[in-house]
């Protein structure tokens, strides 16, 4: 059972960590148009993260703003799902991660847009449109790569196999939160299975379902990501930028 603060923080950290990983692609994309597209999606995620972190700080009521929450927590205090913190890998892995994240965020933000909490509803209404674009973009690439060349098919299937186990954590039931994640699974499955089928890809069978992100038990990757994200802010305590 997550507190309201933890719930909002979880969504915020998903977006923040996803933005950071996507930003790592900047200047490294497979084509120039894709550099622009990935930066766009990173900016959307970052924008959502800022709204959600600000709101989380208000819910907490301890005077922490978006930067205090982003820059001054360590990895044991982050609440993002493990999926978003996984290293970027190749472009196929990044697209697998983005497909699964967007296919989760679209129904999540849609449900949030209709929830009783006015602030969360407003954030959800804004973010769901952006997520729909992310989903389109990732779906297109997953189809292109899955149904492209032999090499791209092999890479895309390997990426799906590697990332798929991390999707289960997204839907851990919690009926006490404004949107119970378990209720989003149907939408997710229907979208993802459609895309994978069109892409001539198969859903892997696995009984391994890693989790822990929502409780602050992360992979070994997150603390490196945060070291980089936070290094400058922490080196100058109290400074304005």
């Amino acid at each position, binding site marked *: 059972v997550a507190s309201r603060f933890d719930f909002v923080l979880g969504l915020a950290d998903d977006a923040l960590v996803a933005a950071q990983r996507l930003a790592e692609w900047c200047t490294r*994309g497979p084509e120039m148009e894709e550099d622009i597209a990935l930066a766009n999606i990173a900016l959307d995620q970052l924008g959502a993260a*800022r709204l959600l972190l600000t709101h989380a700080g208000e819910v907490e009521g301890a005077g922490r703003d978006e930067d205090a929450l982003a820059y001054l927590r360590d990895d044991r205090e982050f609440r993002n799902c493990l999926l978003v913190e996984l290293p970027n890998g190749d472009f196929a892995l990044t697209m697998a991660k983005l497909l699964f994240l967007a296919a989760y965020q679209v129904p999540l933000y849609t449900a949030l847009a209709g929830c009783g909490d006015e602030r969360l509803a407003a954030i959800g209404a804004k973010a769901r449109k952006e997520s729909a674009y992310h989903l389109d973009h990732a779906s297109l690439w997953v189809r292109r790569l899955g149904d492209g060349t032999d090499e791209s098919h092999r890479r895309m299937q390997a990426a799906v196999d590697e990332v798929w186990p991390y999707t289960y954590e997204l839907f851990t039931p919690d009926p006490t939160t404004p949107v119970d994640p378990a209720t989003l699974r149907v939408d997710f499955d229907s979208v993802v299975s459609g895309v994978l089928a069109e892409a001539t890809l198969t859903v892997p069978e696995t009984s391994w379902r890693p989790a822990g992100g929502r409780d602050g038990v992360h992979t070994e990757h997150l603390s490196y990501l945060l070291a*980089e994200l936070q290094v400058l802010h922490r080196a100058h305590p109290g400074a304005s*930028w």
Partner: protein
Amino acid sequence: ADPTAYFAEVIAADQKVEPRDWMPEAYRATLIRQIAQHAHSEIIGMQPEGNWITRAPSLKRKAILLAKVQDEAGHGLYLYAAAETLGVSRDELVDLLLAGRQKYSSIFNYPTLTWADMGTIGWLVDGAAIVNQVPLCRCSYGPYARAMIRICKEESFHQRQGYEILHTLAHGTPAQREMAQDSVNRWWYPSLAMFGPPDTDSTHSAQSMAWKIKRFSNDELRQRFVDMCVGQAEVLGLTVPDPGLAWNDERGAYDFTQPDYAELMRVIKGAGPCNRQRMEHRRRAHREGAWVRAAAAAYAAKKEQANKKEKVST
């Protein structure tokens, strides 16, 4: 009508040459070289700033910087498109860049060592770019002039953002202030060198002026830039690292120390601190993206094939 005469008339009347028009081969070649170099500069220029996106010290600054670097990619695309109107493809130009046969602005061969460099690049490097580019909005070649109008608008936005970063640092903690001054010290002379060699040594200038591709000489633009910066540095409370800087009442302009043009030549020839790194970074991205581009092409071909079959069968 004689196309040579028509071309000369258009230039004389300060009107625009358009892609469909006849133009001298040397005019075309000069433009391709210049626009391509400009496009490459936008693309390579993403790297020094891209270096600080993951470490930006606030989320707001991170968003601004990411959007800025994204804009640069966009500028690169407009400019490649402008070059393509001259009958050369983007792929050809990119290959020339990767083969080291076309250049990009030498300023991007210096490293970004601190966050303050994000401010200084905006203030000085984008500032110098604007001084260079504003006259290009009146360039005789239409597509280039129009691309520059759009780019200049965004560049001056970027310049203000950089200036604001520096202003915040210069009025922040002692460590931030020191970081800002150190950054200006490192970037001042390389920024002056962005205007190219002094007029006495400039090779392409005269013909470009005659064709109205170029409107002012390197030294005129450099002077304009110095005069602009001095007042801004005062507002920032930062020192321009030139002991020879002094107002010259007679000229109505600042006297200043020239950058080290020998260094500029060395950097242009490949011996700057980051030439190899920038090129290898770009080549690696291109190389590692090859399988993705191949997949996209294969997928498009399959879809096209399927569409054709569908049309035939219906």
